[in-house]
């Protein structure tokens, strides 16, 4: 199989978000970076499918020069090569992102059989890039997948819904978006990290069109305004806690 996984560099936010002065981004001065959680599972799934069925895998991102860090991280986990669509750090809207990814996919001489995305990015959460790419490529697409099994020329994709699971049988080639819980991603090994430094990474710099979903600014939602009632410290707090549980009608 030839598999592509699309990922996005996002900050590792802690407990509190701080915005930049122009309110167009999160202040990341003190933050590390990662890829969206769903995408970590997409990368793990690609590595497992290749281990099981043979073939090759690639990881693609549209992002600033620093996103090379995430591409190397993903190659350390077992992805064979990387494609970096380099931006100047300005955000791209979903339509522009989908077009740039589609162009990169079309430029492959040997087409991908499976193109994986996260169900939605951790930051923007637009829920649409993969579906747009599938339409542009004329491929079937299933979203929110939590189990993938390859059988003959088909993928059996399971989706969690209220009260159970829905199953889709999808012909290959296909676009699939995945959710965390699909698998438990591995940690990179030291040899994996060393190998990743030498794996091929191609770059290109697509031009950013005018956004049609145009971000104006970011704001923090109003705080809870809560002032926690301190019930005590250590085991001594237990009687007071139980008093509260009683008041809430829970014991």
């Amino acid at each position, binding site marked *: 199989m030839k598999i592509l996984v699309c990922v996005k560099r996002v900050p590792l*936010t*802690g*407990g509190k*978000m701080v915005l930049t002065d122009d309110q167009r981004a999160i202040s990341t001065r003190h933050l590390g970076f990662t890829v969206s*959680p*769903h995408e970590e599972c997409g990368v793990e799934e690609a590595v497992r499918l290749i281990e099981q069925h043979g073939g090759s895998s690639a990881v693609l991102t549209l992002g600033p020069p620093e996103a090379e860090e995430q591409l190397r991280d993903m190659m350390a986990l077992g992805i064979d090569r990387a494609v970096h669509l380099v931006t100047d750090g300005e955000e791209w809207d979903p339509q522009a992102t989908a077009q740039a990814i589609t162009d990169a996919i079309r430029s492959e001489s040997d087409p991908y059989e499976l193109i994986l995305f996260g169900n*939605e990015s951790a*930051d923007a*959460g637009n*829920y*649409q890039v993969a*579906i*747009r790419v599938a*339409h*542009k490529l004329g491929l*079937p*697409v*299933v979203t*929110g997948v939590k189990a993938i099994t390859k059988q003959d020329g088909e993928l059996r994709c399971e989706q969690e*819904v*209220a*009260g*159970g*699971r829905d*199953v*889709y*049988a*999808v012909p290959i080639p296909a676009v699939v978006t995945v959710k*965390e*819980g699909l698998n*438990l991603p591995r940690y990179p090994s030291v040899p994996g990290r060393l190998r990743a430094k030498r794996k091929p990474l191609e770059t290109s710099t697509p031009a950013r069109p005018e956004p*049609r*979903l*145009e*971000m104006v*600014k*970011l*704001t*923090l*939602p109003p*705080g809870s305004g*809560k002032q*926690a009632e*301190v*019930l005590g*410290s*250590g*085991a*001594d*707090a*237990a*009687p007071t*806690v*139980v*008093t*509260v*549980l*009683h*008041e809430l009608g829970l*014991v």
Partner: protein
Amino acid sequence: MILVFAERSDDELYRQALTFAKGLDRGEVQAVGIDDPAGYSPDGWGAALTQITEERGPTVVVGPGTDRGNEVLAHVAARLDLPLAANCVEATTGDPLTLTRVRWGGSLLEQARLHGTPALLTVAPHAVAADDDSTEIEPIDAPPTANVRVSEHSATVTAGVSLADADVVVSGGRGVGSADGFSVIEELAALLGGAVGCSRAVTSAGWRPHTDQVGQTGTKISPSLYIACGISGATQHMAGCKGAKKLLAINPDNEASIFASADYAVFGDLHEVVPAISAEIRKTRSVGGASGGGGSPR
């Protein structure tokens, strides 16, 4: 005219989308639902909604912010090559339409302009309260030739109370320290008739299955009481538990960000605090359960 996609996998969220659409302007609102005896087909339903959109020329198409609502609207957006704003909490019609939508599972808001007609929107869950209005839903047919469709459905049988529906959830975070450490969390949850949850740090470490995760990429919960033990309160986690009516946080670090969202705070190691709470509940019950005057035995 505003067209509402009546995706009813969650009827409450559909009615919220309808209320949101009516709040957009005073124009007519039409609701259409897909009539598809063959079952759900994302692109088939997207094709049907695209066709009705082209025929009727609405200024805005609104869908609920459910998995299927977002998915079908994305298929419409792809087919019409129009922008789509997912999970909006506010919108004002105009040229361009302006809106506010959620990012980071609700930890951040984005103000944006949408350049395209019709404007395609989905409504973030619980952005508005649904009114009681009953606009009639007009059934439309889906094309029979969809290439991707639900081919089977398997029901999950859950033992005990499910995380999403539980009235009490007791969760553990990194502070639990190990998979075995969850025995104290399980004990308290059982005593309260609740469910066990955990943070993403725990599922990533493999201590608990992902189905137990409360968070932006896990289950969104809305219990009467949420007890968070050894959880620091990362935005990823808070996005999953902000629906809880009351939050009790137990953490040794009194600077932990979870306390900013908590109703009740206990400072200390969960391995001391949680067993003591369980013991106290047992003691209360053994002296008759109905020990009035606050419930703590003297």
